[in-house]
């Protein structure tokens, strides 16, 4: 009999304890980030889509050579002493964001950027041509690149 009452009391008590844990969550701010509207905080060293300083690039093909998945396609044209980029395409269906391309670049003109989302209806839409100056992640001379990866900035 004593045990019977004890079990009822235990049941009631544990239910109340459970409620006291769950109910306060109703009044807490939800943890969810409303992603397309709210952008999460991206750390400065995020390895996202590349930032590319077009005027510094000397078309030396180092980045294309080291890329483990061969996703950088470069075409250039020699004009006098300089090379002019015709195409600098990175195929983001292949790129694995390893940042290896940033390391050998003699002019430090290819860097990893903070953008982490890229969508398209076709595969071609995620092949981005950095030789196109209209590209928002292609930077011309004198422009400040946001978030250059600190460890690569060898001064």
């Amino acid at each position, binding site marked *: 009999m004593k045990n019977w009452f004890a079990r009822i009391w235990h049941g009631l008590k544990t239910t109340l304890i459970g*409620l006291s844990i*769950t109910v306060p969550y109703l009044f807490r701010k939800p943890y969810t980030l*409303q992603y397309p509207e709210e952008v999460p905080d991206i750390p400065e060293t995020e390895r996202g889509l590349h930032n590319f300083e077009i005027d510094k690039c000397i078309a030396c093909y180092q980045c294309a050579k080291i890329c483990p998945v061969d996703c950088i396609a470069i075409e250039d044209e020699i004009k006098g002493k300089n090379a002019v980029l015709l195409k600098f395409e990175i195929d983001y269906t292949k790129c694995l964001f390893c940042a290896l391309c940033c390391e050998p670049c003699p002019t430090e003109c290819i860097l990893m950027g903070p953008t982490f989302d890229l969508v398209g209806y076709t595969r071609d839409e995620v092949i981005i041509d950095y030789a196109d100056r209209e590209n928002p992640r292609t930077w011309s001379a004198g422009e400040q690149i946001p978030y250059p990866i600190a460890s690569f900035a060898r001064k």
Partner: protein
Amino acid sequence: MIAAAQPVSTAIADFLAELVGMPPNWFFSAIAMLLVATGVLMLVVTPVGLGGVYIERKFAGRMQNRRGPNRVGPYGLLQTLADGVKLLAKEDIIAPSTDAPLFRLAPYVVFIGAFTGFVVLPYAPGIVAGPLDVGVLLFLALIAFETIGIVMAGWSSNNKWSLLGGMREVAQVVSYELPLGIAAMCPVIAAGTMSLNGITDYQGGGGIFGWLILRNGYWAVVMVPAFLIFYVSGLAAAKRAPFDLPEAESELVAGFHTEYSGMRFGMFFLPEYALMLSISGVTSVLFLGGYHDPFGLSGPGGTFHDVWWWGLLWFFLKTTFLFLSQICLRWTLPRMRIDQVMYLCYKVLLPASLACLVGTAALRLL
């Protein structure tokens, strides 16, 4: 409500008769009554279904640190409507091995059983669809009727999960029905009537100490346990967690409605919320004073005596409170095993409810 519905249906009957050019007779009255009943049902089903499901999902979200539906319409209010449209548009699959007539009938039985319960509820002074003398009895009968539909669905699906769900429902019904009925008898004995209106009237006056659960203070000794028993059995009757064994999505796929798709599934989904609401309503009538407020303003001679909106407000508040508490419990407690349900119902609730019944009778004699 019945007072308003009758003239409307008479008017519709007259209009229909005039349209056809025949003298009004029983045929037109029947059609008019069907139309009015459909209209009332639509008025009840829509807010109950949409509101109930929305609140449940919102609560579930917030209790799990999520936001819940928030994309369709302002604050996600139209999410349920969108889901309803989706259900309507889905294919209605009836597997060849099912017992088709029973399979088709089952959702309607559940639907009718769950939604008819609203008929006997006194929402406010003068607002009750069917002021029956045996309202409590009818309500308990309707809960049992709903169960038949579930067993039917489980049996006719010809699917092991559904059958297991149906069998669990049977096992659960025979265990919770007894304490549910006996706990409901405590207010009936105390008030001396089986009519929900009568029980509500009995609790008028005296504010919170007029309510049966705290009547004159000392009634609490039997009424608080009886209330808890009725509440727990009511949870089991509405198949809410921790008593959602017939459905048990993590073990039985979806239990008795595994084989149902499209609107037939919707017909199982909406009644759950209807049943939760009507059971909350009956609980508030039986124990929490129905439409009487805790300050005694709605009792005989009070400021708001027989004021319908004041009554409706308090009935709404109490029912909503119980409804929300059911949702909170669902997202707090894990599902019980069937033997634990049996233990709870037969060994705890049943003796306790019998003790409450005897205690109520003794207090009544005092």
